[in-house]
């Protein structure tokens, strides 16, 4: 019989009894690694047995009768249960530290306070980055990976405004909206939190590795509930969304089609009592269907502008004086038209009634100064800086 106490070693080192000196934390970590034991299963077990050590003592037999985990035999197989929890915890800790991260369990003080209230909460987190980020005010920005130029532009603007107001932007580091929000936060110089669907040593998607590096360099954090070495699957993407919502006080859905992962985050936000905001889109745009429905169904508050969103969250928009020199007449005209509505050069030539040559050189100048952003080289969008400039123009 394995004897383990909640507060450190209890036994007297009985030779083959491996778990004898395992701490509650070791058991906690080892147990959270058992495949099939998700946060919900963990919480249920904890409620029944009182401590991780007691659960470990009960072994696979205890898990087997715990519906629905028990119906496929012993979760994790016998092998897992024969391992020494101290060994399991130590090797995981070492693997995590090798990539500059740390293991944070629900027992630790370092466990993000915002997640403590979740039920069930992730038993164990893997974190790279300072712990202080989790104590700041945080807002999540989520949306589709296949974002339109509009979505990218709005995500950037909201991300930038939130970051400038000192709010930590939480998102999932995915392509599209997530990436735009992180990019904006990093560019504004405010820490940001990326919640990965993969272990922290395998940045997913790989295309955002550089973004992840920049985010960490800017004092942000990368979080995952997947242990290093674990394989990942579809459910991990869904579970990640709960953590995104959990870490934030409010969730903003920028662009989400039907059946988007961002809608899962939205549902999680409502389920755990986080404020939910949605950015409306054209009613014929597939990419905005989910957002528009959230608004129509009174599940989310409509975002009329980035400034109004900040006001509703109770923040003042961080004003920064525009640093752009005076624009020429055509440049100003082009920018005003763009602020009114994004468009292709062709449309701008049409709307400004200027020569294609002068519109082109004006756009190039605006791009060089960071005032417009050519999305896919096709449609030009005003950047956050341009919108800020618009107030003094």
């Amino acid at each position, binding site marked *: 019989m394995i004897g383990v106490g909640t507060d450190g070693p209890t036994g007297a080192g009985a030779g083959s009894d491996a778990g004898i000196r395992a701490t509650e934390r070791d058991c906690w970590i080892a147990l959270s690694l058992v495949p099939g034991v998700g946060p919900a299963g963990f919480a249920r077990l904890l409620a029944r047995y009182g401590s991780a050590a007691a659960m470990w003592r009960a072994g696979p037999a205890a898990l087997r009768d715990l519906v629905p985990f028990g119906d496929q035999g012993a979760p994790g197989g016998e092998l897992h249960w024969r391992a020494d929890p101290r060994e399991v915890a130590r090797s995981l800790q070492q693997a995590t530290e090798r990539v500059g991260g740390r293991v944070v369990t629900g027992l630790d003080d370092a466990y993000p306070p915002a997640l403590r209230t979740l039920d069930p909460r992730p038993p164990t987190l893997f974190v790279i980055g300072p712990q202080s980020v989790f104590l700041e005010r945080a807002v999540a920005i989520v949306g589709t*990976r*296949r974002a*339109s*130029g509009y979505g990218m532009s709005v995500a950037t603007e909201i991300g930038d405004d939130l970051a400038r107001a000192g709010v930590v932007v939480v998102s999932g580091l995915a*392509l*599209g909206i997530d990436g735009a929000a992180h990019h904006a936060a990093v560019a504004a110089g405010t820490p940001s939190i990326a919640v990965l669907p993969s272990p922290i040593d395998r940045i997913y998607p790989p295309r955002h590795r550089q973004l992840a590096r920049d985010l960490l360099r800017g004092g942000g954090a990368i979080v995952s509930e997947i242990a290093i070495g674990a394989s990942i699957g579809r459910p991990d993407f869904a579970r990640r969304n709960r953590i995104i919502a959990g870490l934030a006080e409010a969730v903003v859905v920028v662009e989400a089609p039907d059946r988007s992962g961002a809608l899962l985050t939205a549902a999680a936000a409502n389920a755990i009592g986080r404020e939910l905001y949605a950015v409306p889109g*054209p009613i014929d*745009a*597939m*990419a905005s269907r989910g957002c528009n429905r959230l608004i129509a169904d009174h599940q989310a508050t409509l975002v009329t502008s980035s400034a109004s969103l900040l006001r509703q969250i109770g923040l003042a928009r961080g004003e920064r004086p525009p640093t752009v020199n005076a624009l020429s007449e055509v440049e100003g005209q082009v920018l005003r038209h763009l602020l009114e509505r*994004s*468009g*292709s*050069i*062709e*449309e701008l*030539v*049409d709307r400004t009634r200027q020569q*294609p*040559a*002068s*519109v*082109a*050189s*004006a*756009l*190039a*100048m605006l*791009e*060089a*100064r*960071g005032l417009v952003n*050519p*999305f*896919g*080289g*096709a*449609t030009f969008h005003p950047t956050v800086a341009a919108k800020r400039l618009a107030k003094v123009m």
Partner: protein
Amino acid sequence: MLATALSASIVGVDGVPVRVEVDVAFGLPGLTIVGLAGSAVLEARERVRAALRNSGFEVPSRRITINLAPADLPKEGTGHDLAMAAGVLVASDQLDASRLARTALIGELALDGSLRPVPGVMALVSAAQAAGACDAIVPVENAAEGAVVQGIRVRGARALRQVTRHLAGLEQLIVEGTPRRDAEAPPDDAPDLASVVGHAVGRRTLEIAVAGRHNLAFTGPPGVGKTLLARSAAALLPLLDEREAAEVSRIHSVAGLSQPRASVSLRRPFRAPHHTISMQALVGGGPRIRPGEASLAHRGALFLDETLQFRADALDALRGPIDSGAVTIARVNGVLALPARFMLLAAFNPCPCGWFAVDGHECTCEDGMRRRYQARLSGPMRDRLDMIVFLAPISSFRRTGPPEDSSAVFARVVIAAERQAERQGSANADIPPGLLDDRTGFSAAVRAQLDTRARQLGLSMRRLHRAARVSRTIADLAGSTLVQAEHLDEALLHRPKEMRA
């Protein structure tokens, strides 16, 4: 008895003089051809024999040996037939040898003794001229083409009989006059810009590209008019000068593209190969090296419609010629360079469904699919384009006036091309990086601006040079000696950008 006649063979796109030596000796009757002759040359044996007999001559029943010198040069084609037949006649004392020495004989023989045209006559005649021939006799269909070569009298003949009578002094074949050039009519298959509605930016960039011979790509959703616009470039290309025209015609003649009796055209070639083309057909090569589409577009435009559907190896093979203006083919027996200095016109959809990044439309492509599609235009290829222009769908047929027609644009292009030739003797696209300074109108102020923009936009050196050349053309179109900041900015806007998802 021994006789020597002069002919020529094609290597790559150039002619090489070939001496046809004929020896008629006692021995077992027969005709042997030596000197690395290809199969078409070996078959000349039967053609020559029949043509001689049917022209009323006697084929000596003795041992005939024909050597094609230089003997280590592989020879192909049927152009040596006439020289072989004449050689046999002289060697068997049926013809006086005196006029054979300085006359090149080029042409394929039919069995009845008449002459058939051969490809590459212009290159063949100039090779003969370089070898010291004063006269050349070619099939009458090729006479006009051959007459372009200066310093040699070119005569057209219809049959072997005519040639022998001329060589015997019984009849004079008429010397083909230097071809008179008619006013160049625009190619009738090029769409006129008057039929292109809207696309002010597309027209503008096409004009810039054609004027400076820059590489231009159109992208945009299906049906927006990318192909129409690109094809209309054919009517906008400025005319060739005489030297360039001869060069182009020679290549086309070697490829067998010259129309019978057609002479040198000052029209720049406009080639639009289909996207299923093989790499060898695009850049040239093959067991018997032939110029590919890239060489046929030399001094003209190469239009690749649906660029991303081309085979990846074929597209990437264009990188060399775009940089160096020539296709280099390495073979065991040497390296051959085929001229291929073309402007590249490309047209492709932004993604498989065609609607990526189009405002008000949604792209239905999977992210990965779109990236794979866009990656078909490799980074190095993208970098070699000077401008990528997005053509947006026309929102309305409202127009401010009738669209300009091609002739008006052509007139501006010609003036801009003349400015370039006057200033640096080449198109702006070919200005070497070292010459992008005061000599080509880049003031210190504009060069400083270039540096600023390079920093702001994160441009590579090659990108910067390409944009600078385009801005030079924009200044030329504006009639400005100096490149201004606004010219540079316009060029930079159209620079190839990463299509990010």
